[in-house]
C-alpha cells in the first residue's frame, strides 16, 4: 500500500493504493467518482475514459499508481468548465443521450477534441470519438451535438 496524491476534478486527493490497483477502480470505488463507467475492463468499450493531464485515456488500462502527482478530469469535473457545460446542454437538446451510460465518456472526449481544435471537421470528430461504444446508437445525435457545440469553444479562450 502506498499513499499517493493526485488531483481529481480540481481537488487534491490522497488515497492509499496497492501497486496492482487499476485507476478505474480507485476513481470509482475509493474516490466515489461514479460517472466513470466500466463495461469491458479491457480498453475496448471506452466508457472509462478520463482526461489525464488534459489528454483522454482509458482508465481501466492504467495503474492507479502511475497517476501519482498527475491531474485527472472526469465528466463531473468538466461541469465547472463553461464551454463543457454548453456541450452537455447541446447533448441534451439533441437527444444524444438515451440510457446515458456512454455519455460521460463522449462528453470527456468531445471536450478534448473541441478544446484542441474548435474547427475540427467531421472526420476529425468521428475519428476522435471512435474509441467509445454507444449501444443505444446515439451516434447521429452525438455528431450533431458536438457540431453545434463548436461555436462555444470558439468564443471562449482555450484551457
Amino acid at each position, binding site marked *: 500500500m502506498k499513499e499517493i496524491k493526485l488531483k481529481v476534478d480540481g481537488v487534491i486527493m490522497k488515497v492509499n493504493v496497492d501497486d496492482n490497483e487499476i485507476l478505474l477502480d480507485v476513481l470509482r470505488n475509493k474516490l466515489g467518482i461514479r460517472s466513470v463507467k466500466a463495461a469491458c475492463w479491457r480498453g475496448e468499450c471506452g466508457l472509462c475514459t478520463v482526461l489525464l493531464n488534459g489528454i483522454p485515456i482509458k482508465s481501466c488500462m492504467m495503474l492507479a499508481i502511475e497517476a501519482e502527482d498527475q491531474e485527472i478530469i472526469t465528466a463531473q469535473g468538466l461541469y465547472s468548465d463553461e464551454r463543457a457545460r454548453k456541450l452537455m446542454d447541446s447533448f441534451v437538446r439533441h437527444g444524444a443521450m*438515451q440510457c446515458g451510460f456512454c455519455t460521460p465518456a463522449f462528453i470527456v472526449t468531445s471536450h478534448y477534441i473541441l478544446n484542441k481544435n474548435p474547427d475540427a471537421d467531421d472526420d476529425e470528430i*468521428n475519428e476522435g470519438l471512435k474509441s467509445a*461504444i454507444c*449501444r443505444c446508437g446515439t451516434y447521429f*445525435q452525438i455528431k450533431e451535438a458536438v457540431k453545434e457545440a463548436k461555436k462555444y469553444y470558439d468564443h471562449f479562450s482555450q484551457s
Partner: protein
Amino acid sequence: MADAIGLPVNRIIVHAPPAGGGFGLKAGLGWEPLVALLSKLVGRKPVKLVLSRAEQMTSAPVRDGFIAKVKAGFKKDGRFVAYQAEFYLDAGAYADYTINVARTAGYSADGAYDIPNVHVKSYAVYTNKIPTTAMRGFGHPENHWALELTLDRAASVLGIDPVEIRRKNLLKPGESIRATGERVREDEGDPQKVLSVLAQALEPDHVDKPSEPWKVRAKGIALLAKAPSQPPNAGSSAVVKLNEDGTIDVFTGTGSMGQGTPTSLAIIVAEEFGIPLEKVKINQLEMVSTDTNPYTWQTVGSRGLFSDGIALLRAIEDAKDQIKDTASRVFKVPIDDVEVSGGYVFSKSHPWIRKEIKEFANGYTFDDGTCIGGPVIGRGSYVPVLNTFLDDNGHGSNTVFHTFGATAVEAEINLITGEIKIIKAVQVFDVGKVINLMGLIGQADGGFIMGLGSALFEEIKFDDSGWVLNPNLTHYYVPRITDTNFEIKEKFLETPQKDGPLGARGIGEHVMIGVAPAIANAVYNATGVKINELPMKAENIWRQIISQKPELFYKAFQSFESTLKEVTAK
C-alpha cells in the same frame, strides 16, 4: 424471485434504477435469485454481483441463433397465397425465454402480409451453448429475415418490382385476417401509406454512381409488423399524485433504460392537465421500486407507452373526477359542468369561475378552515381486452396493437472485398401519435444502428464443443461512430390507435427489425447474389459472390487492376 427464494411477494423489494440499456436481455430472471441466496448465506450482508464482459458473453443470455426453412407460393400476378416455414431457435442450455421467442416467431411469421395459407412449425432447441433469451424484436428480426428476403426473390422471379409485390399483399386494416385468425383492426395503422412514404423517401429512380467501378449500388427494402408479445393478461397500472404546489408525481411500473417511455408518459400527464412538463415528475427517472410503483407486467415488447399509457390516462381521469367532485361543490355547479385542463379547474358554462389545479391537490380548504375532498390520488389500471392464449393450431386473439413499419437502404457493395457500405437509410413507422419526437428519432436512428450491427458485423463464434471463441468487444464487433457515415431519414405516420394513449402505439423493437433484410435485398438487387446468412461480413459476402456470380468478382478485379495502368512509376 418469490418462487426461487421462498419469500412472499410483499417481503421482496426490487429497486430498479435507470439501467444502461436493456433491449430485452434483462427481461428474464437468471442470476438475481443467486445473489439473494448468497446474501442469506453470509448473514444477510449486502452482496453485489458484477459479470465481466467475458462472463457476460459466455454465461449470461444472448439472442437466439435461428435457422429458417421456408417455401412460398405466389400467383403470377404477385399475390402471396401460401407460406410454409420451419423455424429452429437455438435456446442454448436452458429452455427459458426462448420458448416464447420461438412461439412468437411462429405466429408472426406472416409479417405485414395477408397470406391465406400459412403453415409454420417453430422449435426452440436445447443445445449446450450459451443460454438465449428475449432480445429486441423477439423473433421478428429472425422471421422477417426469412420473409422479406423471400418477397424480393419472388418479385425477381415474377418480374415484379419489390415495392409493387408488397403493395399487392399488405394486410388491409378492418378486413384481413392474420395467420392466427385474428382480424386486423380498423385502427391498426396504414401499411399502404408506410410503403408509399418509404418508396418516395428512398427516391428509387435515383441511384448515385458508385465511388469506384468495382463497386455497385442498389436499394433494398423491408416491411414489418409487430405486436407486443405478452401473455393475454399482461396488465399495467398507474398512480397520479397531486402536490400542493401544482407539481404532479407519476408512478407506473415501466422501468427506465434510455428508451424514453417515462418521458413520454410524463408528457401525457403534462398534456392532460395542461401544465408545463417541468412540473411533472415520473419517479422511474430516479428509481422504480416494487415498494412504491404499481404493477406493470414487464418493461419489454414495445408495450410500455401503450399499456402504461392507457393505465395512466385512466389514473388521470380518476384524479380529474375527484377534482371535479370537489370543485362542483366549491363552484356550486353540477359535476359535468366542471372541466380540468390548461392548468385550471373551471366551470364550462361560466369559465371565469376557475381556480388553479393545485388548490385541490390536498382537498379544497375554505376560508373558515373547513376542507372537503381530501388529497387527490388518481389510479388507473389496464389489461388487454378479450385476449386469449393461442390454441394448439396457433389460433387465438393475443395482440393489443400492431405497429407497421419499413426500413430501406441504399447500399454500396465492393465486389472485390465483399464489404457493404450504407449510403442512405430510411425508417418509416406508423406510430399512431407522435408524443415525443426526439425520442422517436432516437429510437429510429439507434435501432437502425443496432440492426446494422447484427446485419453486418455481430457474430458469436463457437468452437466444436460449444465454447464461445470471441467473448470480448474486440472480436465481437459493435457499431461505432465511424460506421455511421451515411444519411438517415425518419418518417412517422399518425394513423391513430383508438385505444392507444393519445392514439399512440409502440416502436421500441420495430426500429431494428427491417435493417438486415433491407440490406440483404439491396445486395440481391445490386448483384443477384442471394444472401441467406448473417452477419453479412465481408468474407461471407465475398464467398457468396464467388460461389454464385464469380464473373462479377473477376470483372471487378480486372477493372481495379486496370486503374493501375493510369499510374506511372518514376
